[in-house]
């Protein structure tokens, strides 16, 4: 699963995983569980983004649209049709995947910044549309006000829990799924193909690879997971609105956590969110909220430093360091 990992690395990964599983028995304070859930949620979102963007080397800043659309589908299916969010989120994810094909098909022909700007444009079109639409063919979208998930009390079926703990474990399970999915993808034909397209598109075509086809396969999987994450977010807060669930801020968070941690690697995006989200949390709370935006100043600075000094992400020097400690040689 982690082919080129040293023994020390594997041990460390196991320790972190075990720590995450047993964390709630050490920390019981709901506030801390909430924070831990958010860290895991952002890890999951960054990893979903990385599934396509990190491997195929294109920077999407429109991924939040998949989160938002799937979140809306889940909430609306629950409120309008009484469908369990567990099933609704699968529909939502599927819907996001279909939408991603519609957006990705024309867009993946574009390169570099052109691709990035087009993804922003698509996402902004959707967000503005949602914010300005109260009712769409009878579906109450409620514009920028957003939708509230009605409280039904502790119910697994309704994806509602009185405690924070179940949400934490659900997020952790989702994270485990995306990590395993990414690890499998990396070693499969799709993983090889995406790296080939990233390395040299023309060269990849000469080896029988249709770049658009394989980029779209990865994008639709990535959009599906991003959608599941959006549905989770809506259930966790029992609220969804266009700005938070499909705004560009979320897209930027997903992208920079991956990039800072190390895109195109299984664990890099998770490392990124483990570093960045706690910074955001500390900036928000310990300074009493008097410095609105401080955490984003730090994100921006860390991003700039990473691009300049660790262009492949922090995971690369970290792995070298671990390899040196354990005396192994680095690939």
């Amino acid at each position, binding site marked *: 699963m982690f082919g080129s990992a040293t023994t020390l690395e594997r041990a460390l990964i196991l320790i972190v995983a075990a720590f995450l599983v047993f964390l709630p028995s050490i920390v019981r304070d709901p506030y801390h569980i909430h924070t831990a859930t958010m860290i895991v949620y952002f890890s999951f979102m960054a990893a979903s983004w990385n599934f396509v963007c990190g491997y195929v080397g294109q*920077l999407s800043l429109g991924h939040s649209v998949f989160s938002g659309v799937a979140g809306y589908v889940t909430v609306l299916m629950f409120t309008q049709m009484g469908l369990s969010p567990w099933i609704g989120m699968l529909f939502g994810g599927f819907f996001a995947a279909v939408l991603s094909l519609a957006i990705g098909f024309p867009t993946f022909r*574009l390169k570099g910044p052109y691709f990035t700007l087009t993804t*922003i*444009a698509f996402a902004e079109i959707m967000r*503005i549309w949602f914010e300005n639409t109260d009712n769409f063919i009878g579906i109450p979208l409620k514009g920028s006000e957003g939708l509230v998930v009605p409280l039904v009390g502790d119910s697994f079926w309704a994806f509602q829990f009185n405690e924070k703990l179940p949400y934490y474990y659900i997020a952790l399970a989702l994270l485990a799924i995306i990590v395993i999915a990414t690890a499998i993808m990396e070693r499969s034909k799709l993983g090889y193909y995406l790296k080939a397209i990233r390395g040299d598109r023309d060269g990849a075509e000469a080896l029988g690879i249709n770049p658009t086809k394989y980029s779209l396969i990865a994008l639709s999987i990535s959009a599906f997971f991003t959608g599941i994450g959006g549905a989770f977010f809506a259930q966790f807060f029992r609220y969804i609105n266009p700005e938070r669930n499909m705004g560009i801020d979320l897209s930027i968070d997903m992208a920079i956590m991956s990039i800072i941690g190390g895109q195109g690697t299984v664990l890099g995006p998770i490392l990124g969110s483990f570093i960045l989200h706690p910074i955001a949390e500390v900036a928000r709370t310990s300074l009493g909220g008097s410095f609105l935006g401080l955490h984003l100043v730090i*994100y921006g600075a860390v991003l*700039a430093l990473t691009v300049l000094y660790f262009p492949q992400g922090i995971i690369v020097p970290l792995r070298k360091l671990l390899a040196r400690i354990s005396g192994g040689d680095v690939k």
Partner: protein
Amino acid sequence: MDPTLALHVVKNGLLIGGIYGGVALGLSLIFGVMRIINFAHGSMLMVAMYLAWGLWAGLGLHPYIGAIITVPALFGLGYLVQACIISHLFRREKAFVVEPLSALLLTAGVFLVMDNLVLMIFGPDVRAVSIDLAYANFFLGDIPINIPRFIAFVSAIGVAGVLSWWLKTSDMGRAIRATAQNRDAATMVGINVPLVYNITFGLGTAILGLFGALLVPFFSVTPTLGLAFGIKSFVVVVLGGIGSIWGCVVGGIVLGLFEAFASQFVTATSAQIFSFGLFVVILLVRPSGLLGKA
């Protein structure tokens, strides 16, 4: 649409379009010479607007006089961002060409820092300059024309004219054009390419210093204003053809007219959907822009 209304719409579209073109000039110049898309472009306009507002609120300076300070200040800001931050990227790549995505990401970092520093300092409130001129009109036939908007429009055309004249005739202008065409050859004939880059970047943002001062009389400013203007500038540059100065003005006017007409049929916020839609269509169908070669 009745003719009087249509004329009003055309007037509004032309005025705001010219301003879009003026704001986008710097982005186009920087991209044309350095092949970098400055993600923080709109944020720098926002900073210029705050500066102009601060000079008015703090010192009572009329924004048009404040421009004497905002233009060199923004030149300095752009020069420093390029010389202290972006130039490291060029150094790392050991050439004067960088991978475009790294530059985009780096300037996205600058964007995050800038927007949120301003948010920390000034808070999320809307700031506006109120001067009498804001509501002054003159009449062209029956059509009232708002004076500060007209001044901004004329300035956009003027800046485009001066910029293209300066690029053609001055020594530095020639050096910039030479670098844009072939940086290796420029280095070989003794052009100081890093300096050209710093000055290009400074110039590109100095134009924003001017437009910051020209915009505040009729445009209130918030810390998040930058991104919207940045994206619009990308749209304008893509419409007009990247690196083309007059293309930029034309692209701005096209976008302005398009938005003005669209907002006749839907709300102003929804009209933005159409600008983004136009952008996507242009990129997919004709990525070299309206005036660019196919």
